[in-house]
């Protein structure tokens, strides 16, 4: 049943005390899915979890029905171009791609043919016989991509694959992703900025501080971000009455009394309607001493994620 999706069920991963990702639930269908979040938000951690490079502290992951604990099965359908910049010591670009194919089990002749094909796809034929250590950043990026696609995997995972690519190669690479996706494969990639990936992604997953903020089709996610809930602290008389009035009005998602007794804590997605509601309450004679946003960091984060364009 779940053999064509990537599933995260309540997955958490801590590196010692440091949070990697927290209670992640994901249901990723095939097509191009972009993981977007700032540095340290947990994108690489999510990718390493689904490829078995790190193991979840709790929760369960399956990739098209396969557990990441079974690399001998998983890696038959998966290719992963990591963010790690190193190749094994002393290998040439061609050796690097070829070694992966030999481990995959292709006969030497077939492996060589596929290696050259993959290298050609990323336009590295000229430099294939040079040592990877002597490659430029963009070339290393491309050789990793070549290695990931050489066995034409059903699930392609790419950590910041567009980083360091020149515009021409970038366009070709994106075309290749689209091509892969159109054949019903998974292409999962990560990026720091939404605008970089939104045009060609089928789904996006927004992540920050190890938590999934939004997930789904690009249009819906944009709306969700735009109407993300903001939290305010309402200093007022008769907090419980105010809370009841706000709730009846329906402009707020969540209302609760401040545990420190300062007033009412409000979570809302409709800031304008919320402002009007407060005005009405004030007019009705209840004294409102102030409305303070409590989550400016989160607001800034959303601002960052959504970027400039809408």
């Amino acid at each position, binding site marked *: 049943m779940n053999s064509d999706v990537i599933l995260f069920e309540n997955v958490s991963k801590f*590196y010692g005390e440091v949070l990697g990702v927290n209670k992640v639930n994901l249901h990723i269908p095939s097509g191009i899915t972009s993981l977007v979040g700032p540095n340290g938000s947990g994108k*690489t951690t999510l990718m*390493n979890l689904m*490829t*078995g*490079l*790190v*193991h979840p502290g709790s929760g369960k992951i399956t990739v098209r029905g396969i557990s990441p*604990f*079974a*690399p*001998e*099965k*998983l*890696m*038959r359908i998966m290719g*992963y171009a*990591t*963010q*790690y*910049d*190193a*190749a*094994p*010591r*002393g290998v040439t670009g061609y050796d690097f791609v070829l*070694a*992966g194919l*030999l*481990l*995959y*089990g292709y006969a030497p002749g077939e492996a060589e043919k596929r290696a050259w094909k993959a290298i050609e796809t990323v336009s590295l034929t000229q430099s294939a016989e040079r040592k990877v250590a002597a490659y430029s950043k963009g070339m290393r990026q491309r050789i990793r991509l070549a290695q990931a696609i050489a066995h034409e995997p059903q699930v392609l995972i790419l*950590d910041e694959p567009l980083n360091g690519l020149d515009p021409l190669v970038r366009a070709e690479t994106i075309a290749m992703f689209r091509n892969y996706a159109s054949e019903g494969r998974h292409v999962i990639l990560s990026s720091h900025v939404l605008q970089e990936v939104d045009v060609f992604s089928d789904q996006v997953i927004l992540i920050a501080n190890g938590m999934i903020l939004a997930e789904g089709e690009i249009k819906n996610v944009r709306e969700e971000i735009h109407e993300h809930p903001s939290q305010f602290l309402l200093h007022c008389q008769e907090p419980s009455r105010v809370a009841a009035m706000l709730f009846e009005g329906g402009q707020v998602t969540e209302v609760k009394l401040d545990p420190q007794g300062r007033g009412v804590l409000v979570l809302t997605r409709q800031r304008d309607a919320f402002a009007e509601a407060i005005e009405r309450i004030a007019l009705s004679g209840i004294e409102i001493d102030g409305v303070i946003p409590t989550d400016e960091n989160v607001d800034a984060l959303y601002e960052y994620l959504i970027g400039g364009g809408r």
Partner: protein
Amino acid sequence: MSPLAQIWTIAKLEIGRAFFSRRALWVYLLALFPAVIFIGHGLDAKIKRDRWTGRSIASPVAIDSLSPGMSPEQVIEKVGNPQDNRTWQGRHRVESKDNDKVIIEKTEMRSMFYFDGTRRNDLRFENGKLNRISKNQFVSFEEDRKVYAAVFQYFYLRLAIFFGCLGIFINLFRGEMLDKSLHFWFLAPVRRDVLLLGKYCAGLIAASVIFGSGALISFCAMVGFQDPTQIQSYSQGEAAIHLGWYVLSAVLGCVGYGSVFLAAGLLLRNPIIPAVVVLLWESINGFLPDLLQKLSVLHYLQSICPIPAPVDDNVPPVLRMILSPAAPSSAWVAILGLLAFTALVLFAATHAIRRLEINYGTE
């Protein structure tokens, strides 16, 4: 692709790096050190022998027929002119009973030296009479074999192979973590335990070739410079068997220590710690109860060596415990014991590698 084929593919991909790991080139120095010693010793003996042989060679039969009390002239008549001939006067005081008179007694001393092809014969005369003949084997095969046994057990097995395997095997995984390239292997469609065995094979082939040839070369160097008649009788007799056991115990040393350090490289970041711990363990092993002694690589290896290493009688008992295996097992039991020990360690290592995560950064 069958796991066996995968193991072999991994070993082939890895073997170049196992032989020429930049972190472990010093391994070759350890492996060749005994060969250098025995070639040096052999060359030295050969040069001396050639020097004496260049002059006349005395008949061993004639020398054996000499008896104390003979005069130098009689000796020369029997054996011929000596290769070296010295005379001097010995003096010593004789206290006289008369008050303070001191008498100095003089002795006419003479020494003659004959080389008979294999032995150095030193003849000592006092006042014209032969009173001492010392015959020394020029290169003593018996002695050299004992020295070889000692070098092999105390240096080669205990230190050279030990540290050599440390260098080769610990780098198989730890080296790739330092290079940040281990994830490449984890992303291949290969079971983690298969990967472990593939890498172990690569290390084992490299270590066995390096230390097996080290044993072979040093053994040949030790035998090759002996007296030709002795080489012949030895090589028609036990030589091949002895050599076989030495090479086998070197290879088995790589098998055992290799597994230990492969596992250590998976579990620990600092190579000094496992080295010290294992070295200590092997050293105190002689004091441990029987069962724990079975968990020592050296215990098995020493049981396999064809000639027991000599332990000087003057060595204090504590040290002797450290140097000699407590209860040598029979060779086949030892081999099986070592293989079982290795299998146990590798099994533990497969557990460690299955839990291993890539935890180097991405910068």
